[in-house]
């Protein structure tokens, strides 16, 4: 199959979904229930810590060592797995979370590191790889959503892309999850809006003369129709957390990131495949400890509440939660009290989706000199996530134009998590 034909396939699957929409609410509930109790994961929530958080202040503390620079550690619900101070709420959830502490990559630049972390591939000028969320949407069945299935909340500098799978797999970008979504409300009252859309037929008819088939191939009108389905969808409510009880809002934290995590849970519930929530500001070249203290104040309650909430709603087994940034930070503290970029031994947290919880995999040098004894390349994270989604990482897709076969992931699943 060539991917430049995907618009057609997409249209077909769109119609198929439309045809199924008469399913009764009861039918939906039964189907949801069946999905909830067995089978692999079906969604991803990625807490994206843009800027590169320090492993030493977060998931891989080395208290009492010189490289800690005074950062202390706390015990957690998972025996033998500690966290940096400030993660008191998350510590209670660690029985459901595992840590990978020996990640390595060759990308110490924000943009390139972000690309690698998103796609599992290093930047390659001859092909743009899809991000893990795009792969997830492309490979898994549609689900009954009117809204995009790949969503980025509080989008950072380099949004997740569909790459060679096509622009329709790009993450749909939204801001703070309170109040109305941008661009989904017509600027004029409904009668005028409808008249404007109806008038399109007149222009399209004129343009279609002698090129009707070509115009159909653009899928322009179908895309407009899908956008309009979205504009009137009740599922749009999932983006707005303001109807949530005050106690829930408080648990996630009254911050944009906290609200984003809560919206992520709501979006997963209506069938969205991948939600990325960005918390930026980790690039602590100066004053590392203070910056991390502030960021962790936002991250800790939101991450902990998300895990707790997903568990309560029996969603965690079918949702993979990832938390990390594009690289770690240097064990050595620089002259301005900062830590610089460090791709040679950094951490990431993974939870849910049937992944083995409560363990820490790999370790880093307490002196901060040598690389990790058992390094895990970043692409292994992708292979692990794909495996948990019931996908074969070695499956090949054919890139358009070049016809080059490309594996979903070039990595190997981390056996400790999926074995």
């Amino acid at each position, binding site marked *: 199959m060539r991917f430049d034909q995907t618009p057609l396939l997409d249209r077909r699957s769109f119609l198929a979904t439309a045809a199924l929409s008469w399913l009764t609410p009861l039918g939906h509930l039964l189907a949801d229930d069946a999905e909830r109790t067995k089978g692999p994961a079906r969604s991803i929530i990625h807490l994206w810590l843009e800027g590169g958080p320090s492993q030493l202040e977060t998931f891989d503390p080395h208290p009492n060592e010189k490289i800690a620079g005074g950062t202390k550690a706390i015990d957690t619900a998972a025996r033998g797995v500690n966290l940096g101070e400030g993660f008191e709420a998350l510590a209670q959830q660690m029985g459901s979370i595992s840590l990978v502490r020996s990640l390595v990559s060759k990308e110490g630049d924000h943009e390139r590191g972000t690309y690698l972390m998103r796609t599992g591939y290093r930047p390659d000028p001859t092909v743009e790889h899809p991000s893990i969320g795009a792969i997830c949407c492309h490979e898994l069945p549609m689900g009954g959503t009117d809204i995009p299935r790949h969503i980025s909340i509080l989008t950072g500098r380099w949004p997740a892309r569909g790459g060679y799978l096509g622009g*329709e797999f790009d993450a749909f*970008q939204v801001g703070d999850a309170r109040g109305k979504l941008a661009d989904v409300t017509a*600027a004029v009252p409904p009668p005028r809006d409808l008249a404007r859309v109806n008038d399109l037929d007149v222009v399209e008819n004129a*343009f279609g003369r002698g*090129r009707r088939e070509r115009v159909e191939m653009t*899928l322009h009108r179908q895309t407009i129709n899908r956008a309009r389905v979205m504009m009137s969808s009740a599922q749009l409510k999932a983006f707005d957390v303001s109807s949530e009880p005050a106690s829930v809002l408080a648990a996630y934290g009254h911050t944009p990131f906290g609200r984003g995590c809560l919206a992520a849970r709501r979006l997963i519930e209506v069938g969205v495949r991948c939600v990325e929530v960005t918390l930026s500001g980790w690039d602590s070249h100066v004053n590392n400890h203070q910056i991390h203290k502030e960021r962790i104040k936002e991250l800790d309650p939101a991450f902990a509440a998300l895990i707790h909430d997903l568990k309560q709603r029996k969603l965690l087994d079918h949702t993979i939660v990832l938390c990390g940034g594009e690289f770690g930070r240097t064990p050595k503290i620089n002259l301005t009290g900062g830590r610089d970029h460090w791709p040679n031994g950094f951490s990431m947290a993974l939870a849910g989706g049937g992944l083995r919880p409560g363990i820490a995999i790999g370790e880093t040098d307490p002196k901060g000199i040598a690389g990790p004894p058992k390094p895990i390349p970043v692409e292994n994270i992708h292979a692990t996530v794909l495996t948990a989604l019931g996908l074969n990482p070695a499956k090949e897709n054919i890139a358009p134009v070049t016809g080059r076969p490309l594996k979903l992931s070039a990595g190997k699943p981390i056996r400790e998590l999926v074995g």
Partner: protein
Amino acid sequence: MGIRDLLFLGVVLGGAGVLGAGLLRSTKTPVNMSSSKVTPARDAEFDTLVNQINTAMRRKNAELDLKPAPVADELTVMRRLALALMGSIPSLEEIRRFESRPTGQRVEAWLDDLFRDRRTADYLAERFARACVGTEDGPFLLFRRRRFTTWLSDAFMENRRYDAIVRDMIADEGLWTDHPATNFVSVTFDNDRGLPDPDRLGARVARAFLGVRLDCAQCHDHPFQPWKQEDFRGLAAFFGGVHANLRGIHDGAGDYAPPDRKTNEPVKVRQRAPFLPELLPNVGTPRQQLAAWVVDPRNANFSLATANRVWALMFGKPLSEPVDDLPVNGDLHPVLPLLASDFATHGYNLRRLIRAIAATDAFRSDSAADPAIGDLAAKYDDGWAAFPMTRLRPEQVAGAVYQSASLTTLGAQSSWIVRLGVSTGRNEFVRRYGDTGEDEFNTRGGTIPQRLLLMNGDLVGSKTKNELFNTSSLLAQLSSSDAKAVEVAYLTVLTRRPTPVEAEHFAKKLAGKVGDARKEQMSDLHWTLLNATEFSWNH
């Protein structure tokens, strides 16, 4: 509202009225010929070239069983050229001037206008910059994208030889600020090693200037590719001695020593041209030698790759796909060598190349069949018997939305594209529309966010609403008749006149409406035209 405000409003409205009314009347305005007239690049050889291309194309189309589409009308060609060369659509002002010229000379004169226009140089610079330095932000301080694109834009403005431009990129020394070409090198600066990256530079030279994806052989040999790892490494080795420090980019001592495939030990690699080694001079720095080899007129890859890229800029789709990977085994499209050899033998003149492509039957053909005969099947997308329909790039859509809201030319002779940042994604609309990155010629369908943005977004909202200078408001107030208002709206947004059915439909909607109701109807029409397939797709 104070008296001063009222006065001001009067002056502004009066001015707009005079300006608008002049344009709406469609009188034959005298053509303002500036002194910096571009010498016509047409000669007997030029005509022969175009004939040869047309013949080759006809033969190719016959092989594919494609019947040539009819000739497109001149306004359609005008719109294509505006989108390709300045990333926007023609203004009503420009359309009036275009139509005041005699039929048959209009397209040529429009090309003259475009080449004189800073918007063209700026836009082409942005498009070439993507191929030369990518779309990454690049290393902080060491890479100045803006300097680089301004330098390219200046070079295009004076129609500098393309081989000279490329020589500078590959071999120039100095600081990225006052020798902007060196940004080609500094963008690859690797912080860990403290040096520009020879691998990325080698790969970039091969793809951008030779149309060869040599980097596929960076890690290992591929069974079905003619290129071997040693070809790639030999090319990268020309950048082994390049350094970057406070004095900028300069050549010095240093070897290119990538890890050996089997032992992983660093192994020193000698500079070597991947083909035509006899063209490599033995004087100059390694980078100067490489530059001379790349642009040598006997090195056909350089002109073939450039011709393919310029063709892609003009049509939205390269002759040979992908744009940076020419077929090696002789499966070259027959038109490519014709363009390339003319380019190499006429001083690597980009304007001549653009003119030649614009003069071909392929460029002048309609994207539709004669409706009386039938419909163009989808297979016409495989050949060049009809103009290809491709999705416009985000900055072209943004540029067109901005221009459509103004009757006069926006930012003529100024760098409005740069100022709005529409080419580089600093613009909110472009960011939300979704930049295609380095994947320049992706013709697949649009996305839901794009449709939402065009239907409900702030830019379209502000450009179609009842506001002082917006096209729709001016037309509602100043047009002499309903039919005229509809016609000018079509010209301004779609660069064509409405069909009789369209004209009647929309004129009927306007009939009898005055004041705000009339402005609202014109605003609705503008919205509808902006959301049509025709607006977002090149055709």
